[in-house]
């Protein structure tokens, strides 16, 4: 097995409930995503899929355990360094695409570059958008793009800083069946071309079965088991 891009060991995460008690959401003894690997992570609603992605990406700090991204245990980093590591090594794709509405397609990609290197590369941003078939929509704002085009901008943005892995949170949940396959193909093909690992969170078995590795969160998350 090649070096893991993402490695989780004994990761626990709980949230305070309105009544004061804590609810365990994650209790993951181990999880590994190798370089270039593509995996689908299935789980029921509320099973902790999104929380797992937030913990891996450093947006959330776990209560316990190690989260190693590109060889660095991010639980030992302060928030600023986690932000920097996330910008440098991970690309995120969201369910609602979450493009910045005031920015054009190319600017959405440039913004992501700004937070990583501080030196936005317009030529690369343009090339990425051309690679996902949006060379003719560079200067359109999200509201002027179709759902499929917006998702393609989100994929190009996720690739902006040459990440080692892309984490996609329900990328097909808010689009119709015709576009779902396009998005899955786009993500898989693009990650293959760029040698980027891909972890797609989905509750859709049709999406999950297209991936060489298929995981169910309930199988390795001990939280909530009585």
């Amino acid at each position, binding site marked *: 097995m090649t070096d893991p891009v993402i490695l989780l060991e004994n990761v626990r995460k709980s949230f305070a409930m309105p009544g004061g008690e804590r609810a365990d959401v994650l209790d993951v003894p181990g999880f590994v995503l190798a370089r270039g690997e593509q995996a689908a992570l299935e789980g029921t609603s509320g099973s902790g899929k*999104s*929380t797992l992605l*937030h913990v891996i*990406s450093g*947006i*959330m700090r776990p209560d316990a355990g190690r989260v190693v991204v590109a060889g660095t245990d991010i639980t030992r980093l302060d*928030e*600023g360094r986690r*932000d*920097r590591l*996330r*910008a*440098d090594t991970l690309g*995120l794709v*969201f369910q609602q695409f*979450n*493009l*910045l*509405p*005031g*920015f054009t397609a190319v*600017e959405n990609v*440039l*913004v*992501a*570059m*700004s*937070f*990583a290197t501080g030196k*936005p590369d317009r030529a690369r941003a343009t090339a990425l958008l051309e690679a996902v078939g949006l060379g003719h929509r560079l200067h359109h704002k999200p509201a002027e793009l179709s759902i499929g085009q917006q998702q393609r901008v989100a994929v190009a*943005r996720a690739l902006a*800083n040459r990440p080692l892995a892309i984490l996609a*949170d329900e990328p097909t949940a808010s689009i119709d069946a015709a576009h779902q396959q396009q998005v899955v193909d786009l993500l898989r093909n693009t990650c293959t071309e760029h040698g980027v690992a891909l972890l797609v969170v989905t509750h859709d078995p049709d999406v999950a079965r297209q991936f060489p590795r298929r995981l169910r969160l309930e199988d390795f998350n001990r939280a909530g088991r009585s």
Partner: protein
Amino acid sequence: MTLFGIAWRNIRQRLLTSGLTALSLALGVALVVATLVIGGVVRDAFASGSGLGYNLIVGAKGSPLQLVLNSVYLVSKPIENISWDFYQEFLPADTRSDGTAGRFAGSVATAVPICMGDYYRSFRVVGTNTAYFDRLSLGDGRSFSFAGGRNFRAQEFFGGVLGSTVAATLGLSVGDRFAPTHGADDGLEHDPFIVTGILARTDTPVDRGVYVNMEGFYLQEGHARPVVAGESAAASEMPAPDQAGGSGTASHPDPLPFAQREVTAILVETASPAGMPAELLAMGLKTTINEGQAGQAAEPVREIRTLLDLFVRPLELLLLLLTTLVVIVSAIGILVSMVGSSLERSRDVAVMRALGARRSHVLTTVLLEAVLLAVGGGLAGWLLGHGIVAAIGPLITTNAGVSAGFFSAAPLGELLLVPFLVVLAVLAALLPALAAYRTDVAKWL
């Protein structure tokens, strides 16, 4: 893309809200700028009038400020008149009928009488003699010059000189006739005077005056002092022919006897004897006059300084305070606008944070937005403020006698306005910036 660029994009994204916020700020800044500039212009107007080549004004006992305002700035009412005999005390021997020097003549370089009380279409009419324009000078030492025509001559009883504003406003030119009215615009109409000259613009209150030969002024109805019993001999004493030039005909009437004359004030330029500063002499002369009963002496510069300190500056400060409050309220508009868009912003902030933006990036971006709004609104307000000054410039020129236009400036105040605005904007944006700083990323993704 820089943080500056991101901030600019955010402003454009909320164009209507941002535009209204900037507009509100612009209006506040325009008021401050207009207040600062007009305040400066008014101060300049007083400063320019307080040094018109004479350093003392002698008039009837009463308020020295009123004496100065009336004599120099041609506003307010005259206090009372002073006697012709008292005026004579300021004249040298060669200009007096008795051939002896007046009591104060040794301390005086020039004494110019003025008689007031008449109007010509809202402008004040000043009866004086030729010395006003021949002997007095503007504060900076320049002599009066004429844009057209010349000073009236002593023999031209019905000659008059117009200030530049009067001529421009009323459309009068050399050779035209004008008939002053007594006491008010709707008062008794006097005999007409002929314009012999129009003064070049001085940017002083002189521009707003109508100056007529006092010999003609004295001959108008209501201008002769009634002769009381026991004064008959003195009343018959007439000015020498070479002094007044009358011939007793309708076109060249006899001048008014001295005993029936009064003057409203005397503009005095004190002498500068070798080794003695004129100010010292002026102070001594002022003290001597004020100790007597015949009249009072006032120093225009001192009175105007008092006026500025007591009334103008506090008023200006009050206006500045009010307009500054308007700016502060406008700055609160920035806060309201940003708080109002905080929900929308939270999602964007969460996305940016997920893309790797640090909290400091987010904080800086929000503050930059506020600074951009402040600078944009401030710049627009600055232009608008100067536009207001330019628009009301003619009104200021007419009423204050000084020019005020787009390029009139209050450099210090205006320069301080920029950092003030930026600090204000940053303070106003601090709350939404901190809210953005603390955005819960996971919650908004």
